[in-house]
């Protein structure tokens, strides 16, 4: 068994203090250590929506603290945290009716290219314009560096669906980034 890094031990100590006595100071340390990464992650998944992203982070921490006593520490705290963040994002997308269900099958939404066809649009904006299902898989794979098996496991889909969705997402992204002049 590999020795855990010191930071992991420290995360555990802080988490145990939160669980044992609701220690606010311990929570603030945990929050300060992991929130910048969590916020960046959900910010990308939510298409760079600042307000939605901050709401998602708050909801993630509430869920984390609610289930902290059940965390078994057989994975990194940060991995577990990002997993909960991902679930919160999917729930928020559903609730906001951006799509009734976050579809990971063929996208039926029409992707509308941006009005300006003269210039390449910003890559962030292009990703934000992707259908939610496409965007989530593209961000997880191409930005976060996750493998298809891990994505499939986290989203409850097959590897094949993940690969297929990524392929569609990339094609759509290219279309958004290189619109034909005069279109």
């Amino acid at each position, binding site marked *: 068994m590999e020795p855990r890094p010191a930071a992991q031990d420290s995360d555990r100590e802080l988490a145990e*203090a939160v669980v044992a006595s609701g*220690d606010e100071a311990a929570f603030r340390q945990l929050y300060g250590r992991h*929130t910048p990464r969590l*916020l960046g992650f959900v910010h990308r998944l939510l298409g760079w929506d600042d307000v939605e992203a901050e709401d998602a982070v708050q909801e993630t921490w509430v869920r984390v603290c*609610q289930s902290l006593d059940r965390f078994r520490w057989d994975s990194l705290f940060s991995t577990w945290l990002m997993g909960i963040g991902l679930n919160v994002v999917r729930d928020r997308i559903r609730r906001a009716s951006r799509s009734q269900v976050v579809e990971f099958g063929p996208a039926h939404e029409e992707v509308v290219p941006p009005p300006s066809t003269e210039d390449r649009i910003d*890559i962030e904006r292009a990703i934000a314009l992707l259908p939610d299902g496409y965007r989530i898989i593209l961000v997880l794979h191409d930005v976060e560096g996750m493998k298809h098996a891990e994505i499939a496991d986290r989203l409850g889909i097959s590897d094949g669906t993940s690969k297929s969705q*990524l*392929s569609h997402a990339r094609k759509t992204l290219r279309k958004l980034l290189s619109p034909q002049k005069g279109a």
Partner: protein
Amino acid sequence: MTNDELTPEEREALEALRQDKEPSDVLETRTVAALHREGLLRPARRSHLELTPTRLSALVAACIALVAIGFGFGRWSAAPTLEPQVTVSGRVDATDAGRITTEMLGNDNAAATKSTSGRDTATNEVPTALDIQEKGSDYLLVLERYAALPPSERQDEAGREVALSSLYAAAGETVRLFPDNGVADRLLAVLEPEVEQGDRTKDETAKQVPQKNVIWF
């Protein structure tokens, strides 16, 4: 490379998006508030405050300031009440001073407890802080007047001994009253060799020098 695969430029552009985002202070505040509402957190405890160098410096500075303020306040609170007593005592003429000196050096213990204010603070009265102050003023006054006497009229050896013994005894009583007071403790340590030296001299000349009584205040 299939059409689905990313070009190096595309891969680089996408990976460059993987950045942390600094949260606002408001987000932390509202998250903590939400956790309090859920009953998942309790207020922060001091024991988890990190003792950073900045906090440590501030703590040391605060302690020094506190001691300095306490010392200054102590001096300020003592000075205005002591000064009038000394001034009043200063009106006593040289004859009275001589009488008190004689009483100090003589055998009349009862007379030695009579203060310049006329108040008798012998054992049947409960001593007060004012009594301590008055006796202290008397002691200072006697020393002052005694020092003003012509050298031919002074008994320097006896005067030095009784003055130091009184001071030593006073420091001893102060230490007994306020064991944590470092100043009196140090004064006691400084005076001890002097008084012991005086005692040895006294033993050697016991037959020549009359027994002395000391004003204890």
